[in-house]
């Protein structure tokens, strides 16, 4: 067989996956070099949704910058907002009230849950199990309803402002969150039943898209994708912000580094998120929901860097201030951008169907990559 295979003249060919493709989930374009169905090379072409948010930030006041960040990683928008607010507060050396910290943490974790729910649904859909998509959205709806009640928006929330929150939580917030947790604790094992234990699913994901710990670090892969390779990079543990230093949760680490490990890492992370919310939801301290800030915020000259853990990985906000009301330079180190750079490394030698699985487990959000 080998001899025959060698004597047949084959030709590599290119195929454009995207910018319109069902499983790139947005306008990502991948140029694949293929030999039959086997991937020889993946070249991502970005920028189809590049809006130069960083340039826009240079013209905006700090309060306005917060709103732009919603448009990057729209599934983790609260955490993006929080990152900017934390950076500005760091620059102002402003201590926000305890109440704010706890509420921010709860909402962050709810955001993470809703993002992972969507990811789970989409992951199943990418592998051909369309039902998971509807299940993920069904449960995500409860979280968006909670958000809607508290801050009026379902997707781009803008709930944070430098110094605190835009308004206090809705009186129903705690009750509904608890209801949701009760509901979702029953549903998450159902997720496991539908995908995790399925033979086809494990065959499709185990051993696929291996990423070693060294490569994960070198490529700057972060978030659950990196923790599945054993790279301990949870900012919530390494550099606790908001109320993460007072809650008890595990950093999920796996060592397999394949698609299945990345899948498991996210499922386990959902349990941890629920644990965090449970610890805080009954202990929201009384107090102000916003620290006193001036109407025009001017950061003292200098450079401020804040890292937060979004559902996709480490988001860094780098603000350089020159004592004006708008920043001199803002850089968003988006997790998706670095995660994507490892795609070529992970996908080589696998098949087109595997590439879809790998992209799914990287949980790419294109506006987050393109900014």
């Amino acid at each position, binding site marked *: 067989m080998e001899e025959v295979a060698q004597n047949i003249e084959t030709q590599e060919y290119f195929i454009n996956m995207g910018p319109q493709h069902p499983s790139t989930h947005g306008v990502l374009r991948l140029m694949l070099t293929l030999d039959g169905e086997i991937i020889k090379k993946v070249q991502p072409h970005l*920028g189809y949704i590049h809006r130069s948010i960083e*340039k826009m930030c240079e013209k905006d006041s700090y309060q306005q910058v917060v709103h732009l960040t919603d448009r990057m990683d729209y599934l983790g928008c609260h955490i993006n907002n929080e990152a900017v607010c934390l950076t500005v507060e760091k620059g102002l050396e402003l201590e926000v009230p305890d109440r704010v910290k706890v509420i921010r943490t709860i909402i962050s974790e709810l955001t993470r849950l809703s993002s992972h729910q969507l990811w789970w649904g989409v992951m199943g859909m990418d592998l051909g199990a369309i039902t998971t998509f509807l299940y993920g959205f069904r449960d995500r709806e409860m979280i968006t309803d909670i958000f809607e009640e508290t801050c009026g928006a379902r997707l781009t929330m803008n709930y944070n402002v430098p110094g605190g929150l835009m308004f206090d939580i809705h009186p129903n917030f705690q009750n509904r969150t608890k209801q949701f947790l009760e509901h979702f604790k029953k549903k998450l094992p159902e997720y496991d039943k539908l995908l995790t234990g399925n033979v086809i699913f494990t065959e499709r994901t185990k051993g696929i898209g291996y990423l070693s710990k060294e490569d994960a*670090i070198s490529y700057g892969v972060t978030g659950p994708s990196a923790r599945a390779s054993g790279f301990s990079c949870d900012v919530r543990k390494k550099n606790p912000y908001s109320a993460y230093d007072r809650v008890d949760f595990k950093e999920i680490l796996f060592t397999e580094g394949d698609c299945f490990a990345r899948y498991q890492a996210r499922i386990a992370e959902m349990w941890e998120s629920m644990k965090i919310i449970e610890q805080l939801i009954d202990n929201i301290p009384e107090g102000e929901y916003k620290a006193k800030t001036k109407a025009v915020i001017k950061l003292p000259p200098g450079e401020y860097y804040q890292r937060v853990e979004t559902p996709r990985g*480490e988001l*860094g906000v780098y603000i*350089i201030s020159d004592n004006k009301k708008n920043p001199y330079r803002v850089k968003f180190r988006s997790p998706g951008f*670095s995660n994507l750079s490892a795609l070529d490394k992970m996908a080589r030698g696998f098949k087109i169907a595997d590439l879809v699985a790998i992209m799914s487990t990287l949980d790419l959000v294109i506006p987050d990559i393109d900014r």
Partner: protein
Amino acid sequence: MTNEDLKQKILTIVPSADFTDPVYEFLNVTILPADLRKLAEQLNSDPDLSFDYMFCLTGVDWVTHMMVVYHLYSTKNDHTVVMKVKIDDRGNPEVETLCDIWKTAEFHEREAYDLFGIKFLNHPDLRRIFLEDDWVGYPMRKDYVDEVNIVEL
């Protein structure tokens, strides 16, 4: 290592390193492009330093000069350093690539090239990453004027 130890260690590698930037959270070290490769290689390979994770790379246009900022972290020793390369030739900034040391630099350098026009020498695939290949100018520079796409209020 503490910031002070780091400072001493870096000074032994690059005696001309400049530490005048104030330390807010991370140690800032400013060097010249000529020293970049030497320092980067040492930062990565020296077991005491072993900065293996580059979590941010970006350009900054300081109008008088161009700057590339590298945020480095060591997962083994748990310390952070911010390495800044000051490039005096703002019109045509050039600096050596680091993407053979930290793979993540490949995409980030392409981004800096795209938006700031900083050329990374020996980069394997230096093309624009976000903008079209025939885009004129580098949008993140402070003197970039685009009357069509940027609306001034």
